[in-house]
């Protein structure tokens, strides 16, 4: 009985959602929809994650973009959230580019490019030296 009730759609609380033109405008600012945050809460969270991303936490920028994807995707919706999400997207893109460039340069260049310092910086040698390989 409870399960069957769950399948009956209630009258839609937002009549605009029945409009075919307005249906392209997202109602919820987060990908979790009604289970996520409201617009008021989202502004604070988006700002907080955007600022925390500067503390060597660019993954939070990525999470910000992922969570508030509706705000990022639709350019005219949620004007107060969008600056933080766009800023997070730009920050993460820049950081990912820089880190990927460095990591690839290090990996591909190898000892020819970096000399003996490469052996000291590469992680598995460093792990051996510091004795961090207790697991394997």
């Amino acid at each position, binding site marked *: *009985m409870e*399960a*069957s*009730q*769950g*399948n*009956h*759609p*209630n009258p*839609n*609380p937002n009549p605009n959602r029945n409009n075919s033109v307005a249906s392209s405008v997202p109602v*919820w600012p*987060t*990908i*979790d*929809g*009604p*289970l*996520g*945050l*409201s617009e008021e*809460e989202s502004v604070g*969270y988006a700002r*907080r*994650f955007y600022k925390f991303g500067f503390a*060597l*936490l*660019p*993954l*939070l920028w990525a*999470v910000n973009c*992922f*969570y508030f994807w509706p705000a990022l995707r639709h350019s005219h919706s949620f004007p107060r959230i969008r600056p933080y999400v766009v800023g997070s997207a730009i920050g993460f893109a820049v950081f990912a580019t820089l*880190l990927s460039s*460095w*990591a690839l340069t*290090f*990996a591909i260049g*190898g000892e020819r490019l970096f000399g003996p310092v490469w052996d000291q*910086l*590469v*992680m*598995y040698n*460093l*792990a*051996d030296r510091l004795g*961090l*390989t*207790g*697991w*394997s």
Partner: protein
Amino acid sequence: MESSVLECLGMEIIGVMSPVSICMFLVVLLVYSLSSPSTTTTIATAANLVYAENPSDTTAQKLEGAVLNAVVFVVLIALVTFLLVLLYYYNCTAFLLHYTRFSAFFVLAAMGGSILLSLLQRFSLPLDAVTSFLLLFNFSVVGVLSVFASGGLPILLRQCYTVCLGIIVAAWFTKLPEWTTWTLLVALALYDLVAVLAPGGPLKLLVELASSRDEELPALVYEARPTVNTRNHAAAVGFIVTTAGVSDSETSRIELQVVSRDNDNNNNENEINDEGERSPLVGRNEEEEGVRREIGERGIKLGLGDFVFYSVLVGRASMYDLMTVYACYLAIISGLGCTLILLSVCRKALPALPISIALGVLFYFLTRLLMEPFIVGTATNLIMF
């Protein structure tokens, strides 16, 4: 009505079994990638305080030592669980919350870091120190935020990190010696049975305490803000216990016993809502080890300890042969199915370990002792295959 009931039930079962299967699969992959027969480093932990298993010991010595190890470990867990109940009873929830966050960070950063280093060495990936540190730091901090922040992060991320915690702890548990592991699994299944079902059991007390406190909270339900309830409860519950070993902290065992209670009463019946409602309850698989399974009003909650010990069993089986892995996996999933059926009948919190662990251990030894010699013998003599 019948088809819709079956559909909902099936989705709930899949929602519970998918992360369990993913966790077990990844632990088996980790064990296969990183274990080498030459490595016999035995790490001293809470699980083998009494007796360090040695291959040269006699069978009687191994059995006796393993039983002692298991008993001591279970006693430790019971004591710590009662301590949790006391702390929760006296409203030390802030301490419990901070301790939980520290433990999650420790699992992701220290234990996860060790596994990362082993993977880098195994596959000779030339990752530099700066990149490794940045990746690990981000992974750990975002993990702590996602598992314990209330509502500020995606549900999918929370689910992924919950599975990651289970994988990391299970991978560490597979480092225990063989006899100790099997005895420990059986002992934990029995402890789970007692702790959840016996009156006065620590986990039963914990669930009843949380239930009584939940009822006191005003259930304010808003269509657009179902997280109001979650935020109230997130401050109330959530603990992880560290049972420290004798050696340094890197080899400490994290016994995950996370309790959460979710009274989401979302009346919004949109299709998106229906789809979204199931995943957070699955993603909030943060039940106490004993309070493994509980039907909230919306879904099934599975404890993180279940992930760990299912994966430990399958990981240990993968050290022997793939046949035992398949047998154990099927046994555990069948046991989980049985527990879910019992859950729908009993409608109260049930321990999830006993049936699955019993079937898993039984199938492992049957496959190892009976099935494999039979199949290998017939295959060698070209009678079969």
